[in-house]
Structures are given as structure tokens and as C-alpha cells.
């Protein structure tokens, strides 16, 4: 080995590295579709999400292709005797503090339902723990390729404010998809601009996304081995029952929600995107507190005036558009809420699933 040889190795290594980066950036592949899930790993029951990866064997990433590819749904071809139901929505659909089988989707799936024409009802959890209807629309848009027969869409007021639609990281990091949806459905949102440079398309620029993709596959091993996809603390801060005497809802103050403050256009876009597939819009249960200042607020999230107006808007919009809607806001007893005014314990979820089955919307 001499100095010249070393220099050549160094230069060749550098050139190869630069070439790989440039080729990668030029072709801009979507490695998210390559997944070990449903091949050697068990498909996940819900979309990947998690902050404490080491103990939840899960992680938050922004590659929706990779997220969907990790789902059991992606490896379950639809059979003629299957009636496929998707539950989209926020953390209450995803199931914070709940095991996959304890979520609304899990319970409905386990209920052994069959349709009037004898098909078996299979329910898939496509909830994702951020509050934004635009995020729901984005998930719904991708989910349509998996041929649903019915979509259950639990929503809550917190997901509706127009100014919060693009805030969540999953939305902010999928600006192309969101911009496309905004343009296609003419939504009243400012389309985000994709500011990614050529550099961002190289392997170096995408190192975080690529590392996340790899970690998603590795945590799939732990998910397959343990069936755990979130941490279940034995002790958590329960949702507040005693509330501040605060009448504000974000920047909104009484007496009324600003005109066009709620993104009904996004909901309408979801209905339009679903096309022939029926969508049931569900005003999800919220904690109705009986504690201090409960005459001012229903819970930590909602002052009474805002939530009441939202419910009125929910009813009138559903009626006006002839949408199938269920207002189940107060069907769950206060003691069945866990760490948030919209998170239920397993018994609460069972009550909710029972109520939905009772309505006969799954038929």
C-alpha cells in the first residue's frame, strides 16, 4: 500500500458517493413502497406513530407510502365475501392507550358482523393521532386504492379550525399531496409550497427519511414478536375534569364561530373523493365534565358556546348535503375517558362500537 493507492481509493470513493447521490436525486425513487411487512413481518394494525420508539416499537414518519405499506391492509387482498370498512380519524380512532383489538376498528372487526348480502365485515384502523381533517382527507385519498365498501369518519371540533389544518407534521411534510388535494377539490386553504431543493432529493438530503424507513422495518420485527405498537403507562394524567373559566376556543371568542372557520369544504372533499363508497361522518364522543367551571366548558378542549355551535353546524351541514351522520358526542359516561377529552378506555370504546352497530350503518 502506498500513498498513491490511498489517494486513489479516497478519490474513487468520493466520486462513487457523489455519483450515487446524483443518480438517486435524478431518479427520485420512492423506497417507501418497498416493505418487509406482510412478507416476512406481520402487517401492522394501525398506521405507524410513536415518540418513544425503544419501548413502543413504533415511530412517527412522514412517508405515507411506507406507512400504508406497513399495514395489514396492504397485504390483505379483498375477497368477494369481504365487506371492507375503514375507520379514519384522529387519535381516538387510532387508539391512544388502547391495544389494537380494543380500538373502535378492532372491536367492530371482532364483532363478527355480516352484511345483509352475507359478506363478512372486516374493519381496518386508518386513524392517525393528529387533529386535522386535511390529514384525514389525505389518508382517505390513499386509502381508496384499497377498495373500501364503507368509511367511518369520526371527527371532532378540534380537527375543524381552518388555520390548524396544515400544522401537523404529517401534513406539513407531505406538501405535494396536500397541495394536490387543495387544488383538486378547490379547498379554502393556502396550498403549501414544496421548498425542497435538488440537494434535498439526494441520499444525504433524504438520510432522515431513509433511516426512518429502515427503522420502521426493524421495529416491525419487534411488533411481530410482541404485538406491541405503543407504550401503555400504568399511570397517566387523567383528562381534566376541573376546568378554567375560559370561554375561548383557540383564537375564537364568543358569541360565534367565525364564518368559514370550520373546514366543511374539506369534509365535502372527502365525501367527493369517496365517490360511490358511503361515508358515515361521526361526531365522536367527548368528555362532558361535571367539575369546576363545567358550566363554561364541556372539557379541556371545548367551551360550551363553541361546541354547541359546532354541533348545530354539524347537523345542518349533514342535512343540507344529505350525508349520513351520527352525532354521538355524549354517549360515553365521563368515567370512561382516559388521558384526554376524546380518548376512551376499552369499555368506552365497546359502548361506542355498540352504539354504531345499533344504528345499522354497517349493512
Amino acid at each position, binding site marked *: *500500500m*502506498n*500513498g498513491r*493507492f*490511498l489517494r486513489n*481509493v479516497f478519490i474513487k470513493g468520493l466520486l462513487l458517493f457523489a455519483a450515487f447521490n446524483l443518480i438517486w436525486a435524478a431518479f427520485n425513487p420512492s423506497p417507501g413502497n418497498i416493505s418487509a411487512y406482510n412478507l416476512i413481518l406481520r402487517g401492522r394494525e394501525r398506521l405507524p406513530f410513536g415518540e418513544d*420508539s*425503544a*419501548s413502543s416499537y413504533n415511530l412517527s414518519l412522514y412517508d405515507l407510502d411506507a406507512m400504508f405499506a406497513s399495514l395489514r391492509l396492504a397485504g390483505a387482498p379483498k375477497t368477494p365475501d369481504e365487506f371492507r370498512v375503514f375507520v379514519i380519524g384522529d387519535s381516538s380512532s387510532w387508539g391512544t392507550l388502547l391495544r389494537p383489538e380494543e380500538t373502535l376498528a378492532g372491536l367492530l372487526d371482532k364483532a363478527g358482523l355480516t352484511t345483509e348480502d352475507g359478506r363478512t365485515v372486516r374493519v381496518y384502523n386508518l386513524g392517525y393521532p393528529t387533529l386535522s381533517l386535511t390529514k384525514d382527507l389525505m389518508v382517505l385519498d390513499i386509502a381508496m386504492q384499497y377498495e373500501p365498501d364503507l368509511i367511518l369518519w369520526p371527527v371532532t371540533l378540534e380537527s375543524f379550525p381552518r388555520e390548524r389544518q396544515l400544522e401537523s407534521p404529517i401534513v406539513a411534510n407531505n406538501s405535494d399531496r396536500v397541495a394536490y388535494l387543495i387544488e383538486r377539490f378547490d379547498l379554502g386553504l393556502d396550498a403549501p409550497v414544496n421548498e425542497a431543493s435538488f440537494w434535498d432529493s439526494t441520499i444525504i438530503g433524504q438520510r432522515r427519511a431513509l433511516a426512518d424507513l*429502515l*427503522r420502521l422495518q*426493524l*421495529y416491525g*420485527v*419487534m411488533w*411481530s*414478536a*410482541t*404485538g*406491541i405498537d405503543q407504550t401503555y403507562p400504568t399511570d397517566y394524567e387523567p383528562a381534566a375534569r376541573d376546568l378554567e373559566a375560559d370561554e375561548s376556543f383557540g383564537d375564537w371568542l364568543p358569541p360565534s364561530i367565525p364564518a368559514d372557520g370550520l373546514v366543511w369544504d374539506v369534509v365535502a372533499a372527502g365525501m367527493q373523493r369517496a365517490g360511490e363508497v358511503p361515508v358515515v361522518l361521526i361526531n365522536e364522543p367527548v368528555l362532558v365534565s361535571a367539575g369546576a367551571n363545567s358550566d363554561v366548558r364541556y372539557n379541556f378542549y371545548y367551551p360550551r358556546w363553541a361546541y354547541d355551535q359546532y354541533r348545530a353546524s354539524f347537523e345542518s351541514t349533514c342535512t343540507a348535503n344529505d350525508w349520513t351522520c351520527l352525532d354521538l358526542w355524549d354517549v360515553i359516561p365521563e368515567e370512561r375517558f382516559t388521558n384526554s377529552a376524546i380518548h376512551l378506555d376499552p369499555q368506552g370504546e365497546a359502548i361506542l362500537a355498540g352504539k354504531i352497530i345499533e344504528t345499522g350503518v354497517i349493512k
Partner: protein
Amino acid sequence: MWLTSILILVGLALIIFLLSLWPRTRALRKLLLLVFSVGVIFWLQPALPIRGLDFWLPVATLALVALGWLLTSKAEEREVRATLVNTGLVISTVLLIALTRYVSLTGWITPSRPPQTLIVVAVLCAIFAVLFLLFIFSRRVPLGAGALVAAMLAILLVFVVLKLPALTQWISEVLRGWNGQSRELASSIDLRWLGFSYIAFRLIHTLRDRQSGRLPAMALDEYFIYVLFFPAISAGPIDRSERFLRDLRKPFIPAAEELGGASKRLVIGLFKKFVLADLLALIALNGTNASQLTSTGWAWLLVYAYALQIFFDFSGYTDIAIGMGLLMGVKFPENFNAPYLKPNLTQFWNNWHMTLTQWFRAYFFNPLTRALRSAKKPVPVWLVILITQISTMLLIGLWHGMTLNFILWGLWHGLGMFIQNRWSDWTRPLSTRIQQKPALNRIVTIFTTLLTFQFVAMGWVWFALPSVQTSLDVFTRLFGMGG
């Protein structure tokens, strides 16, 4: 160790490499090795919750090393001037580090703010005074074998204390009490002493070799550099002093070969540690996921992942240490030689953490075997093998930690080696016949290699988990009997 820390250490090694390129600066190599090695034990020392302890433990390391040198060096071979200069260098380095309490370097040089300078000066003076008196005293009255044995026993005692959670917890309580800190918060991990395990091995090696007259004469700086050489301070290899000295004393004239060899080992080591091992760590068996396993197949995968993770982690560190050593003109012995590809357990241990097993062989296994074989009442060969294999492996297990699981891991390997030894002995005629048929021999070798790996991998279940019950639960799961 974080990647940044390793890169900084590589940077230090590169400084020495570059300075050695020119004849004028080449002489600085030893001096820089001494200063860097002393500084690194403060820098890498983990932060400890007991006030000041993460400064005093490295100081204690230095005191121990100085004491080790006094005990192992012959008075007539000591050069007074050089010794004083080197002592001054070590003390100056410590003082400089202590003075960083007055600048915003906390967390950069030391994990927490160094103690008050006056206290540091007082302690250093006290240590210096004691060692100086010993230095003078040992010139007049040579230290006998008793002192060497006492020193070895003292090191072993500290070692036992550090490895016994109940004792470390108690000491933590006492130290917290002295410091006016809450005793209730005392924990057995409050006394993490950077590199003590490896330092202890090197000290015992020099003390024992001094006792047997095999230790070469070493100047104070050489002794410090040998014991504290920063590439090997936290994870070995455990070099032998005579071999290390040859490299240290040889004029180091860097060439492309050293740079190429070092770069290769560093790249391989970094890849093993920070890519392979760290990725495998996500799916490797551990105390938490052991109780969450739901199926046999996945349980095996986690055990195999652990087996590979510990190999890549440890051998990766070794590669990095060897690479850094090459940059400074020191060629460390190899520590791993494809251990999972060996056809029997004895060969596995001859190729896994080789410098550790060689240490135990030299200072425990061989002397014990000799003692048993030369016993007045003859001990049967099989019993000699049983006693030596099991006791050696038990000690290696205890070196990792004084818990029941490490004892069981040692027993697992000790018994495994004994059985393998007896089996090999019993089937020797058959083995000879098989060896004459290459195809059959290859098949048998593949089978025994897989069997050995399987045995070692299962042994890691004891090693990786914190309790016997958890390990038994995992074994139950591995054999399809889990609930």
C-alpha cells in the same frame, strides 16, 4: 461511546500521526500520548450524581497507576529526573482540567464542574506526598512480594465492590451522606468508574509479571501510557506490556501503509458499531422485550439478533481501537477472529475476546492446571479439566458482573467446554476417520459450527437478561412451551 467521542479520539490519534511525520516533532509522540491518555480518562468518565465523584474517580485511577508503577519498577532502573518531569506533566494536566471550572467548558472536558481548585491542589499534594515517600522508601528498602500480592488483592477488592450492586449502593449512600446529598436516591450505578475493569487487568498483569520477574523495565510515562492508552481504555484489547513497549519505544515513522491499515480498521469498526450493532440493538433480546415475546420463532430471532449485536458492537470497538493504535504506531493484538464460525466451543473462546481469555489463561487457568497436576495426591485428568474450565469461565462471568445470571452464563460455557472436551476425547478415532473424507468432514464441520453458534447464542440469554426467572421464561418460549 458516541460517534462524536470516537471521532474526537481519532482526531487525537491523527494529531500524533501527523506530528510523527516530521523528525523534529516526532519526539512529542510519547509526551502527547501521556497527556491525551490522562485527559481522556476525565473526558470519557460518565457523569455521576454524587458531587465531584466524576472528577475524583479519574484522579484515583491516576493514583492507582502511579502506585502500580512504584510497586513494579525497580528502584535502580528509575530515572529521577524523567520521573519528576512526567509526574509534573500528569499533575499539570489534572490541574489544567480542574481549572476549567472557571471557564465555560463544563461538559466538554469533564462531565460536570470540577471541584474547587484548592481542594484539588490539596488532594494532589497529598497523593504526591504519599507516593513520593513511597518512592524514597522503596529506594532504600525494595518492596517485597508481599506488597505486590497486597496490591493485587486490593485491586480485586475494589473490583468486587464495583461489581456487587449491594455494595456499590451502600458506598453510594455513604458518599452521598458525606456530600450532604439525599441517601434515598443512592443507586448501584452511581459508581461507574471509566475503564476500571481494563485498568485492573493491566495493573494485575504488571504486578504479577513483576512478581515472576518477567516484567520489562518501564519508565513512569511508559507505564501510564500502557495502562491508560486511550484507544483501549473503555473496551480493550488488553495488550501485554512487553509487546506494547516494543511498539512504544520503536521510532514511529508514519507511512501510507499505517494510514491505509488504520483507515480500513476504523471504517470497518465504525460500520460494525454504528450501523450493524446499533441497528441490531433495536431488535436484540433485552430485559424489557424478553417478557413481551409472543411466539417461538420471533424469540429465536431476538436471541440471534443479540448474539450478532454483541459481536458487532464489541468487535467494532476493537477495530476502532486497533485503527487508532495504528495511527500512533501501536499495533494492538486482535481480539476477535470470526468466533461464530468456529466448529467447537474451545475454538470459539480462542477467538472471542481473545486478549481477555489469554489473560485468564496466563494468570488463572494455566497456574491452576499446573497446581492441580502437580498436586501430591493425583487428580484425575477429567477432574482437572472440569475444575479449571468451570472456574475460569465462572471468573470471566463474574468479571462482567456479580449477578446470578453472569454466574450461570459462566457455568453454561464452563460445562459446555468440559463436555466438548470429553466428547472430543471420546470420539477422537471417529474424528480422525472423518477428517480423511473431505466432503464428510466439511458437512460435519458445518454442523458443529452451527451447533456451537446455537449453544453460544443460547448462552447469551443468561448474559443479556437481568434475572434467572426472565431467562428461564425466554428458554421456555424458545422451546415452544411459553404461555
